[in-house]
């Protein structure tokens, strides 16, 4: 029993047409963002084409989230311009933007006890009053099936675990059915099966002609699933290109300030590992073959006498 009232003077929104693969759906020209004195993004030039998955990678504080927020319009630009579908981002109204790009933030908290089904259905709201509205049920159902949240449909969103929430929120973003998908660390709380599932769905969307921009922390996942990667460092784009071009040992070691090895995987793709020392294991805390020097060091640090550590 729902009472829905449509405003009779509702404005007509420009509905998007599906882009062709290779179209520039999103262009950033010399984008800069400053908050107070701090320069968070500087001179970022990037174009995103329909049909590709572009991963944004970089160390903490490099400006990945700010870049995504600048694209979504949540952070005002101090210079440069962002173009969506050939027109400045500011020339679209909120609903027209929502028809063109969907956004998944790192964590989505819901204030009231809405069910997962309600939440996913909210993704359809930009299309209210358009012809697309006819397909609501079908789109919601397929989005929920794809992300495996169907069994959770009747549960309250706030009662879900972190990973389940992540999937439900992703499902809502898919239901929005926008040609640009912007994802901010979508896999953070998910287990490995669902991390892979999410990236696979991202690829399927790109294959269907959408553009997917995703912030990823796991470099190997970025290498495995994306067509191009953009490496950010101190608010600037350090490199853009295919994972093989960008993810070199010297480049990554320099940007992350940590020795990183990049090896070709026998099955194709890259193995990316930090260089780690071989450790001596202390199984159940027993220090077999504990070097004398280290023992003395530990004793000094802990303020214990040398005899206390055995």
């Amino acid at each position, binding site marked *: *029993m729902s009472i*829905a*009232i449509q405003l009779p003077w509702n404005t007509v929104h420009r509905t998007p047409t599906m882009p062709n693969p290779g179209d520039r759906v999103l262009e950033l020209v010399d984008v800069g963002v400053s908050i107070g004195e701090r320069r968070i993004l500087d001179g970022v030039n990037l174009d995103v084409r329909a049909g590709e998955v572009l991963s944004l990678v970089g160390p903490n504080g490099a400006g990945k989230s700010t870049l995504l927020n600048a694209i979504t319009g949540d952070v005002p630009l101090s210079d440069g311009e962002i173009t969506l579908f050939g027109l400045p981002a500011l020339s679209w109204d909120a609903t027209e933007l929502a028809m063109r790009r969907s956004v998944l933030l790192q964590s989505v908290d819901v*204030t009231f*006890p809405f069910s997962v*089904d309600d939440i996913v259905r*909210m993704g359809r709201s*930009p299309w209210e009053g358009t012809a697309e509205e006819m397909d609501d049920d079908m789109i919601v159902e397929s989005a929920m099936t794809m992300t495996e949240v169907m*069994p959770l449909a009747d549960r309250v969103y706030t009662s879900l675990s972190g990973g389940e929430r992540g999937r439900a929120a992703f499902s809502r973003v898919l239901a929005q059915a926008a040609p640009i998908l912007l994802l901010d660390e979508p896999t953070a709380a998910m287990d490995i099966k669902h991390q892979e599932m999410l990236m696979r769905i991202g690829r399927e969307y790109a294959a269907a002609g959408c553009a997917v921009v995703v912030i990823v922390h796991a470099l190997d996942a970025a290498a495995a699933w994306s067509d191009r990667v953009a490496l950010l460092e101190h608010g600037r784009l350090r490199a853009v290109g295919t994972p093989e071009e960008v993810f070199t040992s010297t480049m990554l070691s320099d940007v992350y300030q940590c020795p990183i090895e990049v090896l070709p995987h026998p099955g194709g793709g890259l193995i990316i590992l930090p260089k780690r020392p071989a450790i001596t294991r202390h199984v159940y805390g027993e220090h077999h073959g504990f070097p004398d020097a280290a023992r003395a060091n530990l004793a000094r640090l802990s303020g214990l006498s040398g005899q206390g550590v055995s």
Partner: protein
Amino acid sequence: MRNGNTASAPRSEIRAAAERVDQARNRHIAANATDLGIAGKPHMGKTALTFAVLVVGLLVMTIVSASLGQLIIPFDQVIGSILNKIGIHWLAGPSRAFGNEALWNVRFPRIVMAIVVGAALGVAGAVMQGVFGNPLAEPGTVGVSSGAAVGASASILMGWTFLGSFTTPFLAFACGLITTMSVYLLARRGGRTEIVTLILTGVAVNAIAGALISFFTFAAPTNARDQIVFWQMGSFNGSRWQQVALVAPMCVIGIIGVQFMAHQLDLLSLGEKPARHLGVNVERLRFLSMLAVALLVSSAVAFAGIISFVGLVVPHLLRMIIGPGHRTLLPASALGGALLLTIADFAARTTIQFADLPIGMLTSLVGGPFFFWLLRRSRSKSGGWA
């Protein structure tokens, strides 16, 4: 070959077993969720039943409240009197002398006023909670009630009569509206408002209003002081059709107006940014909601005085029963608020003979413990709010 077969047979069995366990688990979860009443998607029947109960309750309370009091008019005569008024002469009207006058000049205006004010307060509470994304928000948070009290007490103290008997209500209405809008504008910066800033600005403005009310109470002569104090306790005593005619249109406009925002309020519960990403103009929604709340509450308190806890408890309770969707929550809150105030006003009139208890006192007296119970209940069920 044989090795491969023996290895794969148990594996597929394991997989099938795992699937069965999974399905059983999901069924169990779904069943439990419904049992506990935490299944977010309420049954269609539950919602319809709630609306039916509220409407029937309201009708019954109207007739009960009209029939009982110092002058007792039997139920059938009350119904007869209403039917006579609209031209159906099926049942006889009141048989006692002045029965009809008591009904139409005293009781019905009072009941209708309670219904209108209750509906306005209930809806305003639901909108406030939606906009603030906080189940603890109520119209008082942004200073509507205290602002209105400042206007009312100033006019009582000064003895202004430029609008006759409507001077105090008018000033209460105007000050409530002005206070809310100034809280909103003070909290606004660079075209944006943050919820926490808004709430804290409300705290500051409420404090100033409290000081002004104290000063007016202090400065007023005994007679005016009584009036100021009683205005703040709220009462429907002495409601007239004229007053109803002023308050009702504004409340009806407000209640219908917020219904247009219902879906956007749903989206806002995802948070400000996700709502914007779904095409909601959050700032405009906030401004319009605050305007609607200010209009509803200011006109509700103008004649009746301050009645607290309706805007807090009614939407909260109904959200537990019919779920958080604003498209159903807003009309249900209107009905629930109306029902609650009709009952409260009936109690205020009849609990103590020859005395009219302040209705604000009654709603707080019942609302406080009830709210505490709700709080404990939702805590034990879902580990806190939401």
